[in-house]
């Protein structure tokens, strides 16, 4: 279960083309005689190859936002553009890792079959599938469990399967919806390093949604801080930590503490209802 955490040199990453463009996104839930404005106005761009974290207080509509971006939920206003194409349904260039790993994997399939199924749907040839599946399985450290069923694995390992499935799919943007909220702290640290590692190895663009400030700062190149509902972006924080990060070293640096402090402050403000647009909720 050891993961190679030494980052490969990051090259050929085009940080100028936008992979994902969210413009004026608004989502209002209607029904039961009242409208609930979950997301008011979100605009941000994620460039190809970036690892961006979205952090917000609980109830900030993070999941709503992610479901809108992934095309699982219709937007009320504004648009989501992936690879230059407007998202109206789940787009081909996107893979989602859900928080509920136990429920998002198919218990009737083995680890290998779970990862292979989306590739089959994509129409890849058998040999190509086998190769990509094996690469993904090795990359997440599940080589020995490839033919087990998900329910025979621990929670952290199950989430690795879901991550491997998403990575093997080779999406333009990998969306992660609080993927580690349900695992214990040590597993969580391992999985965070895994995400950084995969990001380096596969040069995938990652949008990582979390409520955990430390996690957001540790993982991201940028952290988008969300306001309280109805959601807008409070701040786009650039994370200036070095590319090579380690749980022990990075988390004890002053820079990390300063960034964490700053984001924390923003979240506290958000909780108290501070809004950059001056509106009231």
């Amino acid at each position, binding site marked *: 279960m050891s993961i190679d955490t030494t980052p490969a040199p990051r090259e050929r990453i085009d940080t100028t083309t936008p992979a994902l463009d969210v413009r004026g996104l608004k989502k209002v839930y209607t029904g039961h005689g009242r409208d609930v404005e979950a997301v008011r106005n979100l605009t941000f761009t994620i460039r190809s190859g970036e690892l961006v974290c979205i952090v917000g207080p609980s109830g900030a509509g993070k999941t709503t936002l992610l479901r809108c971006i992934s*095309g*699982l939920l219709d937007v009320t206003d504004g648009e989501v553009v992936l690879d230059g194409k407007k998202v109206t349904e789940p787009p081909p260039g996107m893979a989602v890792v859900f928080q509920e790993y136990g429920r*998002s994997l*198919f*218990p*009737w399939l083995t680890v290998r079959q779970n990862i292979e199924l*989306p590739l089959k749907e994509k129409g890849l040839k058998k040999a190509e599938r086998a190769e990509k599946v094996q690469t993904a399985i090795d990359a997440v450290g599940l080589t020995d469990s490839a033919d087990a069923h998900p329910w*025979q694995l*621990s*929670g952290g390992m199950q989430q690795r399967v879901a991550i491997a499935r998403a990575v093997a799919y080779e999406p333009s943007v990998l969306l992660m919806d609080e993927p580690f909220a349900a695992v214990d702290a040590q597993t969580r640290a391992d999985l965070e390093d895994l995400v950084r590692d995969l990001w380096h190895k596969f040069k995938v663009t990652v949008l990582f949604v979390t409520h955990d400030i430390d996690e957001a700062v540790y993982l991201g190149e940028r952290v988008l801080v969300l306001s309280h509902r109805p959601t807008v972006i409070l701040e786009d924080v650039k994370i200036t930590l070095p590319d090579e990060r380690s749980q022990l070293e990075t988390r004890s640096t002053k820079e990390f503490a300063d960034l964490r402090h700053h984001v924390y402050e923003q979240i506290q403000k958000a909780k108290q209802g501070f809004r950059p647009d001056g509106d009231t909720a």
Partner: protein
Amino acid sequence: MTTAATTAPERRRRRLSGSNFALGAIGLFSIGALLEILPRIGVMDRRFFPPSSEILTMLLRQLGEPGFWTAVGQTMRGWAIGLTIAMVAGVLAGVVIGSIPVLREFTASTIEFLRPIPSVALIPLVVLLYGTKIQSALILIVYAAFWQILVQVLYGVADVDPVVRDTARSYRFSRWTQFKQVVWPTALPYVVTGFRLAAAVALILEVTAELVIGVPGLGRNLGIAQSSGAVTLTYALVVAIGIIGIIINLFARYIERRVLRWHPSVRRDVAA
């Protein structure tokens, strides 16, 4: 963090089921012994309650008769054909109705009205239509078993986890793949439960049709034995039908375990 199952609980379970089996055998034997002694000492009237050894002897003698096996074959054939028709019809109807919300709403009250009608209430009708032909039994079986299966399939199809559905959608599974890889495996435990219930009900209705209408099979032999005063044979045939019931139930459970190896109700090992 290994995938290997711990064998300790498994062994414990096996030992438990082993002792259960021994206890059950002892219980069965005790009741057999009681039913042997009571008629012999005159507590029970021997004319109507022959000792269990006589019943058993009669049953063993029946096993040597070709006519008995013909009747077993007829009963099993009616059961199998009826159950197969009910399974196919129930699963198809369940999947179609369950996948189309409008259709589900549209049929809901009709199903709730038709389902509680006891199949035996159709006996006068099938006698008029088919007399003692095998079709009479089949209609009763299919009617009784169909609802068992249909209702289970309807529940099963509706039980797809929203996260699984989102996963399938986000990976752009085609409708067919969604059905094959998501809806069907989700519904399968329900389908198998429906199958198990239907298998038992089908035997009841097959024997009822034989006994009441006179469709050829063990049930008809039972009726003839009873009306000709062959009390011991009557009991022997009842025991034979009971054994068939047990075999059918074991068969259904075997199928269940085979099909649902991955399901929490069947699988043995879950790491935390």
